[in-house]
């Protein structure tokens, strides 16, 4: 872990404003690119939209703080989702009496197909798939959602506190169950 390279103290001291400004731009750009993905992930955790939105901002501010402190982060996306996952669960634990967010997504499904009959079939297929995802175990869902967001097995493992091979096993089970639904 390199942290501040040697001499960086000196450089940072000479040009603090530029250093800070570059870091701000970097995190702001990443925030703009990824905030919707993190927001949706937090919704899948059961956070209500206002709280999820607040949490997203909090996570990116933590990222900024961590980078500012010199933390060496190999994968920004992996880091952000790990922290978002932990922060989201902590929020849920602190508000244990609140019912988790679970919108009636099936009602919101809209198909882009032109043919009404095809659209109906497509809608039904997606609704069935959604029900199957909902039926997965919590760990299977977490692994699946994080994988959908592009995280690698070790990154998912780091977020959930499990080994990469356990992630593989949970994903295999999830995919197998979803495959069955798709084949039905």
């Amino acid at each position, binding site marked *: 872990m390199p942290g*501040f390279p040697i001499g960086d103290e000196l450089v940072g001291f000479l040009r603090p404003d530029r250093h800070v400004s570059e870091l701000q731009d970097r995190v702001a750009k990443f925030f703009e690119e990824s905030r919707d993905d993190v927001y949706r992930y937090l*919704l899948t955790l059961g956070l209500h939209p206002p709280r999820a*939105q607040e949490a997203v*901002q909090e996570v990116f501010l933590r990222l900024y703080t961590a980078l500012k402190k010199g933390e060496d982060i190999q994968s920004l996306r992996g880091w952000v989702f790990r922290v978002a996952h932990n922060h989201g669960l902590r929020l849920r634990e602190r508000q244990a009496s609140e019912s988790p967010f679970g919108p009636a997504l099936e009602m919101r499904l809209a198909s882009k197909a032109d043919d009404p009959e095809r659209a109906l079939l497509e809608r039904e297929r997606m609704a069935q798939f959604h029900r199957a995802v909902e039926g997965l175990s919590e760990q299977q869902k977490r692994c699946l959602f994080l994988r959908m967001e592009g995280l690698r097995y070790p990154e998912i493992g780091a977020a959930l*506190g499990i*080994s990469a091979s356990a992630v593989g096993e949970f994903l295999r089970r999830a995919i197998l169950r*979803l495959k069955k639904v798709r084949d039905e």
Partner: protein
Amino acid sequence: MSNHPEQSLLLRYIDGELPGRKSRAVQRHLEACWECRTEVEELQKTVAECVRYRKQILAEAFPAPPREWRDIYREFDRIDAQTPRRAFIPWRWGLAVATAALAVAGVAPYAAPYAARYAAKYAAYHKVHEAASVNIGDTNSAASSKITEPPVRSSTESGAVSVEVPPRSAVPSRPAAIVPGPTASISDELLVMSVLHGIEADLGDPVQVSLSDGRVQVSGVGVAPERKRKILAALEPLPNVARNFSDPPLMPLPKDAPLPKDAPLPSDAPPPNNAAQPAVASSAPGAYQSRLEAQLGGRGPVDRLTAQVLNWNESAMAHAYALRLLAQKFPADDSMNEQDRATLRGLARDHLVALAAPLADFERVLVPVLTGLGAASSRTAGAADTWQGAAEQVFQASRRIEVLSSLLLGVTPARGGYADLPSELLGAVNELRADLDQNQRLLGR
């Protein structure tokens, strides 16, 4: 690669998670094998369905953020303003120049700036924190450190090694009624429990049964709608039953409410004093996984064993929890009438019989593996003189198997040292067998 690769291997292959050599071996196999290529295509189709699901449901059907995103630059500035800024102090120049000079002189490692040392220390802390913060892995439990796939249980369930349900004093059972009357009796309560048992609502559904206000109170918070319908339908014909199902009320905590005692620290919190404590002891379970791979013939068989053990643990723990709940609810059944006692013990026996199935699987499959790892054990049953006491021992032994097997198979990160994990696990299996037999004998009295 002559044999067909396991499905988990194929999934890891298409996910790019296999090391180069293994990946190339799978690729060569796929080029030659129609069957496996078709299997991979099927997996890819399901993956594509997941991508569509993310785009069509997660991206479009979820509500948009309710407010405009805040100006994050302003927040950055706020953080910067809170961070103490270094003032221009001449001696700092001297320090910086000296640091650079030391770097040039090749003594940088000894003169690393504070920030770098802090960052390194922070990283060490963070690794420990990661290993210790498994309790957030399961949103259904308050502090779960296990990564098995338990059925949804009440919020008192914990995945941590010690699962504490508030102890109940060993008071005599409530007086039994001979026949159900206008006021609910223990007979009505047992009847309700039998009905719930019949639809397996005692195996993890967050449903509680109690006797108060002259009625059997069946309450459930956050039960899935479909499940709730089934439970209500089953309870419909029963007399003197009050049904209290609800969703958890909205009750946000104050913004600055303190974190729960065991909650993980925020990721940017300063490292605690004991951050340097090792997260994994010398007997790292990773070493066992390598030995298991060597013993069973590769990662595929180990993954298959892991999946089986997860299933068996899930089944065993569901029944162990239910059995323990019965024992805690009725710490003594001497004062019950014959029929009630028979009903209660019948329920307990059912759980023991169901628990015997995964135990037999452990003995058939897991024990030879453990013996192959050099495990030796001669544990015996604990001393219990009531079936309720033996039920608690059954629960504890089941819990030990769940925790130890998860550690051995790498499903749960290790948090403490185990001198001889295979022997301890073998001991737990033997102990469960002895406790289960003892429990059955005591129930038969």
